[in-house]
C-alpha cells in the first residue's frame, strides 16, 4: 500500500473500519519502523514514491583481503580483481577504498582504484604511488553514474594498474560501499 494523507475529521464524523484501515493501518505500515527488517540498514528516500522511505539493506558492504602481487607483463591493461562486492542496486554509491601499496620494481608508478560493473575508473579516482616504501592510501568517491534501482545487483571491484615493466604490490585492501537511493 502507499502512503495516503490522513483525512481530517470533524465533529460528528464516525470512524469507520475503512478509515482505520487506510489512515492508520496502511499508513503505519509505510513508516520506517514497519519497513525495518534487520539491523544495519540506512533509510533512504525513494524517488519513485516521495512520501515514503525505503531501507537499503545492507547499508554497508565490506571486505578485507591481505595481499596481492602482479607480474610485470600483466599490466598491458588494468587488472580487475578482488576485493569484489556484489551490492544491491541503488541509484548511486558512496565508495571507500584503501590499500597498502608500493612499487616492487620498475616504475615510476603503480595505482589502484575501484570499478563498477567493469567500468574503468577515471584518473581522479585512482590512487597513485611512485615509492618503493609501503604507504597506505585511501580514497572515496560518489559514483557519478545514475543507476536505476531494481532487484539486480552490481559488481564493485578493485582495479590495479602500473607503468610498463613495473611490478606492484598491494596488501590490506579494504572496500566499503554505502548504497545511496
Amino acid at each position, binding site marked *: 500500500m502507499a502512503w495516503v494523507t490522513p483525512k481530517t475529521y470533524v465533529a460528528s464524523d464516525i470512524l469507520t473500519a475503512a478509515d482505520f484501515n487506510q489512515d492508520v493501518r496502511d499508513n503505519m505500515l509505510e513508516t*520506517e*519502523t514497519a519497513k525495518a527488517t534487520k539491523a544495519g540498514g540506512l533509510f533512504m528516500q525513494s524517488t519513485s514514491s516521495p512520501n515514503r522511505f525505503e531501507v537499503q539493506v545492507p547499508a*554497508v558492504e565490506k571486505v578485507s583481503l591481505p595481499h596481492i602481487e602482479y607480474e610485470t607483463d600483466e599490466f598491458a591493461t588494468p587488472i580487475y580483481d578482488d576485493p569484489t562486492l556484489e551490492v544491491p542496486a541503488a541509484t548511486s554509491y558512496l565508495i571507500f577504498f584503501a590499500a597498502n601499496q608500493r612499487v616492487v620494481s620498475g616504475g615510476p608508478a603503480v595505482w589502484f582504484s575501484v570499478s563498477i560493473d567493469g567500468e574503468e575508473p577515471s584518473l581522479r579516482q585512482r590512487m597513485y604511488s611512485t615509492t618503493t616504501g609501503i604507504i597506505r592510501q585511501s580514497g572515496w568517491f560518489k559514483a557519478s553514474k545514475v543507476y536505476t534501482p531494481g532487484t539486480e545487483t552490481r559488481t564493485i571491484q578493485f582495479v590495479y594498474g602500473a607503468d610498463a615493466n613495473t611490478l606492484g604490490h598491494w596488501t590490506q585492501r579494504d572496500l566499503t560501499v554505502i548504497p545511496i537511493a
Partner: protein
Amino acid sequence: MAWTTPKTMLPLDTLTAADMNTYVRDNLLETLVGQTPGDDRIAVSVGPGEVAWRSIELTSTAVSTTTTSTSPVDVGPTISGVEHSGRVLVLITGTLRHNSGELASYSVAPTTGPYGPHIIRAIRAQGSNNNSLSCHVLYYDIPSPCDFTGYLWAGGPGTSTLTRGQYTVIPL
C-alpha cells in the same frame, strides 16, 4: 514497547482503548518521529520493526602530540558510548612527522573488541617534514556501545609528532 503490526478492522468491529494504545500510541512511539533525536543524527534500522537515531561524532587531538614509543600509545582523544548496529566507519586525518626520518603513525580504534590499536590501518609518514594524510577504517564485530581512541607511535628511535589530528565516527 515493541512494534505491533496494526490489526485490520472489519465493519461493526469496535475500536477499543486497548486497540488505540497498542496499534496507534505504542506504534507511533516506535517511529523515528516518536523518538526525539539530537542534532546531526542519521536514521538506521536496528532490527525487525525497530529503528533508531545514530550520532555522527567528531573530535580533535591537542594542537601537537608527541611520543618516542615504538609501540602504540593512547594519545586520545576518546569518543565514548558510540551506539551502532554492528559497524562503525571511522574517517581519520592528521599531519605527521618523525624527527629522525623514521615512520610516524597514527591510528584510531575501538578500545574493546578484536582490533586493539590496529597498527596496520593507520595514517603514516616517513621523514621530518610535515605530511597531511587521511584514511578510513570500517570496524565491525565490535560491541555496542563502544569507545574509540587514537594511538600514536614511532617506527624507530626519535620522536613522532602529530598535529591537527582529527577523526569522525559514523555508526552504521
